């Protein structure tokens, strides 16, 4: 059963991820991106990481996608204003993307996952919120606190750049 759900979710996330790229309308892209995030949350649940699944939906599918929509509105993107890319650029993109895919498939096909897949050390509860909290607030305390400095920089920068300057035209 879990296998079938996994394959279904993978299929769905691949399709929606491709639709993100192929949609001509940027708002449709955002909607497909949200679908992709939901599929990824499904994967997290299959991996027994419920907290990550919830955070993924709250933060990514909820908040960050709103920002995406804001930006799309800002840039006033429309289908008819989208620049057409030349054949050469498309060809280069296909070749480089294909090469990356080739390398990844070649590398991961024979990948040895014994370090993580070892049944002796495997802990199915590792993704639960208690374990995450225990690790985050003991071993990884320093990065956690420094993340707040990172957020602070982002916040200060955002309000500084977004601030209206004297004499600036505003609507």
């Amino acid at each position: 059963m879990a296998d079938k759900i996994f394959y279904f979710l993978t299929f769905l996330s691949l399709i929606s991820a491709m639709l993100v790229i192929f949609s001509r309308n940027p708002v449709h892209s955002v909607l497909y991106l949200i679908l992709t995030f939901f599929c990824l949350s499904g994967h997290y649940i299959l991996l027994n990481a419920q907290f990550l699944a919830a955070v993924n939906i709250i933060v990514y599918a909820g908040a960050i996608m709103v920002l995406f929509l804001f930006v799309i509105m800002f840039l006033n993107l429309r289908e008819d204003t989208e620049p057409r890319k030349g054949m050469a650029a498309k060809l280069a993109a296909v070749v480089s993307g294909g090469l990356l895919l080739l390398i990844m498939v070649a590398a991961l096909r024979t990948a040895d996952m014994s370090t993580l897949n070892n049944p002796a050390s495997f802990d199915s509860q590792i993704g639960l919120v208690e374990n995450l909290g225990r690790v985050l607030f003991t071993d990884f305390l320093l990065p956690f606190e420094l993340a707040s400095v990172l957020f602070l920089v982002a916040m200060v920068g955002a309000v500084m750049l977004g601030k209206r300057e004297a004499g600036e035209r505003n609507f």
Partner: protein
Amino acid sequence: MFYSVVLLSIFGILNLFLGFLKSRAWLLPVTLLFLATALVVTLTDWNKSLFFWNYMMSTDNVSVAFATIIIVSAMLILPLSRFYFPNAAAPVPEYYAILLFSVVGAILMVTYENIIMLFLGLETLSIAMYILAGSDKRNPRSHEAALKYFLMGAFATGILLFGVAMLYGATGTFNLSGLAQYVRTTLVNGASPMLYLGLTLVLIGILFKLSVAPFHFWTPDVYDGTPTLFTAFMATVVKTAGFAALYKILSVSFTGIYSVWWITLAATSVLTLLIGNITAVYQQSFKRMLAYSSISHAGYLLIAVTAMGQTSQSSILFYSLAYTLATITSFAVLILVNENRAGESFSAFNGLARHNPFLAFALTVAMCSLAGIPLTGGFFGKFYIFINALEKGLLFLLVVAVLMSAVGIYYYFRVVIAMYMRGSDDNAVADRIIVPKSYAAVLAITTFLTILLGVAPDLLVRYF
């Protein structure tokens, strides 16, 4: 080092709130005092080998030295802001605070022991730089710089994270020594391809931030559009921290698979040297030339990383210091020339020597140092790196590097020729530039140190 990170974070927040004071006169001295305090705290870690917070950070002499270079270059760049913001409403306290936070990020990149800390440091530094790149809100080129830098940088960070995930998938650890342990043990059994893929992606992510070819294409536009004061910061602090981080991850964790990655780094450094130096020849703007020159210096530094050996850390250290000092001098003179003569092209420097012999002398020393002329720090920087390459038997790298240094002399001396040989035909241009005291002090310090490093390199090298 942990304490200097904490202190600088607190000082950054304090700086934000200092902005509420009516008087701005105290802002710069106080910020310099903050940095000096952090410097002293950093230096107390000298000759100690410490780990902090469950192996998140580690301190040794090399990381102390790199952190010192970072803090000192921040201290040298800050006084240049004295008359840089004519607009009274400019959010200077915020700029200072963001600079302090970016120094926090840079120190994290120098002292990390866990890849998570590398990522955090890189992000803190990068986000601060994206903001500062776009801080000139009236200037569309500044917007362009910020957007380009942000999009490209975010993409590179994504690649880096993907690589980190691969490394974790292969080894099950984020710790540098844990990775080294895995590399040592799997060499016997044959390493997992996922490790190689992860390493490649991490390298791409870091090289991108270092503007190494073929990931350099954002550099000229970003350096050009960013306000010159912050370009100086970008060209020095980000480079130093990035190379320290690159050297650390490769030397601590991946020396066991040197045979796998050295060829990639060698190829990129050849490409970087060729692209950086040859494109720099064609530039008409001094600022763009400095951007390409920073690409080419990344190439030289990459040679030292490729020729990893006993002495390469000291040569990276020496080279970054010499490069930092010379770059700060060039940008300081560029700011003055740009503000007084309204131009960033080589012709704006015409006849500078007649009116401002001190500025011309300082810039000449900086250009000699960047070109690697003897009696300046840059000469010994290149010399040590070439010795490294020779010891490792990387002859073709050496040949390319020597050839490209010769090319470098050509474009570095264009500005010297403009200053000394060309007369200024325009009367408005002929005016003497009044050098503020803070600029004079910074230029005196950097020029003195550049010459000192060129005359007596042993003063620094004997410690490592």
